[in-house]
């Protein structure tokens, strides 16, 4: 019985740890205003946010920070664009299940198809509606 209790406590600790992980969202965008606006909307809803200014920096953060539970990713960025970063993240296998939403002013079907094929979970056209973004993030993090 004691072993069972210890196991349950460990499970509870693990679940609590997972919950805090799920709340951390990485925002990758070269525009400081977009990073700030996404960050504020999510922080007001209770999420913790991290920021990266391009795909290369975002990819590096995902590799080093295991607490990141979700990524909101711009497409057009210097150094490494969002689609390249998406494909690089999914290619690692380790982060294949990490939910990534593209947030971009692009709306071409070809780009959507490429993102979907690479494993993105959604596509939001800028300028986004903050309350809908929060609902979407909450839905994907809970799921």
């Amino acid at each position, binding site marked *: 019985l004691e072993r069972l209790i210890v196991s349950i406590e460990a499970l509870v600790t693990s679940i609590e740890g997972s919950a805090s992980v799920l709340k951390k969202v990485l925002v990758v965008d070269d525009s400081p205003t977009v990073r700030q606006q996404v960050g504020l909307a999510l922080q007001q809803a209770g999420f913790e946010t991290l920021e990266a200014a391009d795909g290369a920096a975002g990819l590096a953060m995902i590799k080093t920070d295991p607490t990141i539970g979700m990524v909101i990713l711009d497409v*057009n960025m210097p150094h490494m664009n969002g689609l390249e970063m998406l494909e690089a993240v999914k290619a690692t296998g380790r982060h294949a299940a990490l939910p990534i939403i593209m947030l971009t002013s692009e709306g071409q079907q070809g780009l959507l198809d490429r993102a979907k094929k690479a494993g993105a979970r959604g596509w*939001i056209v800028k300028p986004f509606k903050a309350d809908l973004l929060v609902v979407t993030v909450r839905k*994907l993090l809970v799921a």
Partner: protein
Amino acid sequence: MSLTELAANKVSGGEGSLRRRLGRTLIASLSDFRTLMMQRINEVNSTTEREVLAAAASVAAVVSGATAHARRVNEMVVSIYGHDGGGVAAAVARQSAGLRRFFTSVSRDIARQESAAERAQHHLLRITKAASDTAHLASAARLLALNARIEAARVGGHGNCFSTIAGEMQHLAEEITKANEFIDSVATRMSKDLPEVAESARALKASSEELSQDLTVATGEVEREVEGMRDMIRRIIDQSEHEMTALVTSSHAALSHMQFQDVIAQALLRLDPALYELQLRHARELGVEELAGQVRAPQQTEIGGDKPVDQSNAGEIVLF
């Protein structure tokens, strides 16, 4: 050579040479224009970006401050009145119930006093009647002693025993009369005091009942006030939550509007690649392809190319 001079046909040479000179001038002018334009665009974008960052930070500060303030107010209200004012209501209800119990107990005690006084008056009447009966008894004893004395005198020496009995009866009658007088005096004093006690108890009972009624009215008013206060607190908390929701919604709307700064900034930056493409086309069309390699490439190009600022599908969310 300026474009104006070219237009005025003030140059010499063949048509091909003219086109090439025109091409070189046009491409050079476009390069100058692109440089100046990008300088201005970067200035505009930098300024609007700085201002929007500050505006969004201000909005966030307002929301954060209002949220913290509302939270503090709610915490204060809850700490004072309970989650719905029930703390004060419960305290007042407890006080009211305690006071009612106290006055009920007092009224009961006073009623017992009044009843005891009435019973005492009844017993006093019985005592007075008993004293009266005893007085008759003493009178009868005196009469009997007198008769015994007369009978003793008539029979002479043989009546000595009657004379002794007559004397004892006379003495008994006198003792009874003394005792009766004492009882009478006590009864007289009690008959004066007891009605005052009974009247005092009745008056106390009446004032206690009046006070109890006043208390009932007063506590009823306090309870109604407390209930009103509970409603008010519920409304304050509900309104506070409603206003906070509205404030967050408004701040979200403001953040949504502010994103147009980035959309417009990107649209302005897309002018440079468009002009770059125009330069390359002119270089081809005006026969100066060798200049195409010297034209400065744009700093940044977008995957999807140029697009309108106000897109019809802006804000659209597609989940895969």
